[in-house]
């Protein structure tokens, strides 16, 4: 077991500002955000619709490039990298779970899970995918295509896919947003179990207070600014 002081910083954000241009002029979505997320932490970003949560998530994951300030994943600054290099970095460090699952419709469940590991050139992709699908309880659905799976099942495949590349940081965008309560619970349970066992850092955007409450930290996004929630460390108030 590593000592407290040896814990690495997974994500470091300094003075992050993001402006997009639109027909009506420039629009600043994120304003001077500073943030540090340590390895193994789980962080929920909550906030009203349009407050900039998803933009922040996208920038943290290196899906887009910010206009000012700096973002570093494990000490690698994203700001100076081009799309080619950022993609490589994502492949190395990052996993994703989306609200609308985004499985590739032309690939079956097993192939979808194998995909990120294959992109990394992992020879054990198939074995890993089989294990993960076993873990999410879908070993009987390996050759089913996304359209043949229910929403909950699709999201379980997506979770298995997210862990297949053994990411250090997992980004989740409203992972239960498209699911009913019962399926949502299953997904949350799976997500946290896997997160725990794999030692992954989790950054999640959600509207679901119940879900947010399960995270180590909750950050509130409001008008482009980010604040630590006062309900900090108050895990699972409803339970």
């Amino acid at each position, binding site marked *: 077991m590593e000592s407290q002081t040896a814990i690495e910083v997974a994500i470091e954000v300094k003075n992050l500002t993001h402006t997009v241009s639109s027909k009506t002029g420039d629009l600043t979505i994120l304003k001077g955000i500073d943030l540090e997320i340590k390895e193994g932490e789980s962080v929920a970003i909550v906030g009203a619709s349009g407050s900039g949560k998803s933009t922040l998530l996208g920038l943290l994951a290196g899906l887009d490039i910010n206009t000012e300030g700096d973002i570093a994943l494990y000490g690698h600054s994203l700001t100076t990298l081009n799309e080619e290099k950022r993609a490589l970095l994502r492949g190395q460090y990052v996993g994703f779970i989306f609200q609308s699952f985004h499985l590739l419709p032309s690939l079956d469940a097993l192939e979808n899970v194998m*995909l990120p590991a294959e992109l990394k050139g992992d020879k054990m992709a198939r074995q890993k995918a089989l294990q993960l699908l076993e873990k999410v309880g879908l070993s009987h659905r390996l050759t089913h295509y996304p359209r043949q799976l229910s929403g909950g099942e699709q999201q379980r495949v997506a979770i298995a896919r997210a862990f297949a590349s053994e990411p250090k940081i997992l980004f989740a965008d409203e992972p239960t947003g498209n699911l009913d309560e019962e399926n949502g619970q299953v997904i949350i349970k799976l997500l946290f179990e896997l997160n725990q066992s794999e030692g992954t850092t989790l950054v999640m955007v959600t509207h679901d207070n119940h879900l947010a409450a399960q995270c180590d930290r909750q950050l509130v996004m409001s008008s482009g600014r980010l604040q630590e929630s006062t309900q900090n460390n108050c895990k699972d108030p409803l339970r």
Partner: protein
Amino acid sequence: MSFAWRFMRKEMRSSDVVTLLVALVISIGTVTAISLFIDRLRLSFEQESASLLAADRVVRSDQVIPPSWLQQAESLKLSVAERASFSTMIFAKNKLQLSQVSAVTNGYPLKGHFLVDSTLFGQGVKSNESPKPGFIWISSRLASLLGVTIGQTVEVGDKTLTVSKYLVLDPGASSSAFSISPRAIMNKADLAATNVIIPGSRVRYSLLVAGEANALSALQTWLAPKLTEGQRWITPKQRGERIGETINRAESFLLLAGTLAVVLSGVAMALASSRYVKRHLMQVAVLKTLGATPKALSRLFLLQLLFLFVIGALLGLAFGWIVQNMIAALLSSLVTTALPEPEFWKMWLGVATGLISLVTFCLPLMRRLIRISPLSVLQPSARVEQRSVILYLIGFAGMYGLMCLYTQGVMLPTVMMVAMAGIGLVVSLLGWVMFRFGRSVTSGATSGWQIGLAALYRRLVPNLFQLLVFTLIIMLGLVLVGIKTSLIADWQKQLPADAPNHYLFNVQANQIAPISQVARTLKITSSSWYPMVRGRITEVNGEQVSKLYPDDKPEPELFERAMNLTWADQVGEGNKVVAGDFSANGLSVEEKVAKEAGLKLGDKLTINIGGVFHTLPITSLRFVDWSSMRPNFYVIVPKSVLNDSPANYVSSYFVKPSQAQAFYQAMSQFPTVSILNVGDILRQIQSIIAQLSQAVQLVLVCILAAGGLVLLASVRSTLEERMEEGALLRVLGARGALVRQALIIEFACLGLFAGCIAAMGAEASLYGVQVYVFNAEPSWHPMLWLLGPSAGVLLITTVGVFASRTVLKVPPMHLLRGI
């Protein structure tokens, strides 16, 4: 890599990839078929051109070759042969047929060989010997027209000859393809006994020589000052160049027609790629979030395109091979020799076409796919939008490049592009008016009419494009049908019922009385007799024609070759003097040829008639109604000029079908007289047009398939939108039948409009052909107005409803699920 293959294998089944593949096959196949077929024609001519002249050099002449020329050639140790070619009647039992006969000396051909066979329509075996005296070789076509076989006899003029072989190829014949009169070869020793060559007959004499290059050039030097107008020294190169040019022109023309299929396939490819890109945008964004680099994605999609291209090219080449074989089979009876197999490497043009189409129509769209921001997984607004106008411009630039490649120049493609843009503009305008009108007469959404017509107007731009595509296709089809079925019939209908249908020529003065007697006995209507001599214009206002028109400058028709001249006291039937005085002691020239040659009243022409030169002024210009079917002449000379010249006579007869048998029977006592049956000639032209148009129809079918594909791809690109509309209508309480009705009406109206505009265009084109090519009165073609719209409605409704069939099945729940 393994992911790439797996991805590809799965994608191969999706409808846009299939559309892309089919489009590729059509475009590669069409171009391959055309270029291979042309290659076979070219190879066939090249094989012939080795023996193209049947000699090393030929002297061609309108008059008998002086014996001194032969002696000179022999003294130079050159091998020598002679040949005389002419049109004459060949009789067998009670059948007769105008034929192209060559009489050759022993030793002909000096170079190359005959192809002859002892079975009808055989492929032929080589023979270096010419027919022996007393024998004749006739083409299989002539044999079947006359109903004779080997061993039986035919009559050429007064001489009876025995058929000993079927002639497949004469190495010295001007061209073995597309000739109207069937051919025969006999020995020159029998020529005099036939009595068919009389003063004034149109005969082409050739002196063939072969041997050492030095001797040949010595002969050329010796002959050069002796050659007169109408005599030429011919090398094999000159012959080859002319034929090569004709084939090049045919190739350019066919390939340009094929371009339409290529352009349409390209558009179908672009539409299919666009839908493919739309479908994959989100997937690519997801792959990017998973760490796929743009380079890896480019490789993935390029690999996929390459794989698609290889499959498409293989299938397209196979398809093209089959189609070119079909074209060759359709034209086999027009081409007298069997076509050689095409060369494989000629397939490059088809492959290049496929590659250029794919690169210009698909790659720019694929780039859009690669460039999508991974952020769009979270925010759909972050997608990269590219302007489709620019994408299509890249595609059309590629097509323009292809056309330049096909025609080896920029002129024709530029003209064609401008013409297409013009037609596009007119059709768009007409279509806009029609769609607008359709929209304005209905409003609301309670009937299929209202919904269908509204849909046409709402998707205005894609619908106008469909309209243009189908208008063009249907119009081409209608023009083809019109030319094949009605043009000649229309022209015949316009002739007076008793218009002459037989020409009699090669008639000698002493035969006029007995032949007229035959006509009187059989109650056959005849026109007057015209004396006819051959003459050639050599000088205009004292300047030599050969200097006015050097080799590289095309000569007007009037100066091009020897022509038939006549004299007349008064203006003949169907002729009208438009300027000058007919009775003056000068020349009367037909106004159109005069205009072409830049001649006016008072210009002095020198005419060589049988070696005597006459210089006369033009004293009148005439309008000639060529459809009068009476003997007509470009130039009429004063009687005083023709009096001393050896002439034969020409006349035209109207022979009723019931009189024909008796007439032919009676005419067989004048075997040297040639009879030209206009009906036969027209039937031959009709059958040639029918066969050629069948070949063009094959290209049209390829164009049609590409057009259908465009419609299919276009409908599929709006499928999501249509499904949503369909579901919405159902949610709002519409019955399934209403949705179906609306779809049918939308496509049927599009077809109806396309058919009507196409009929208009076809009618205009046929008007042009009737008025300017046939010099006939224009007439309406009601059949086109029936055929065009009904073909349009049937075609577009079938394809359109098929492409959007899922809309009919979509449940109202679709909207709620938002799948």
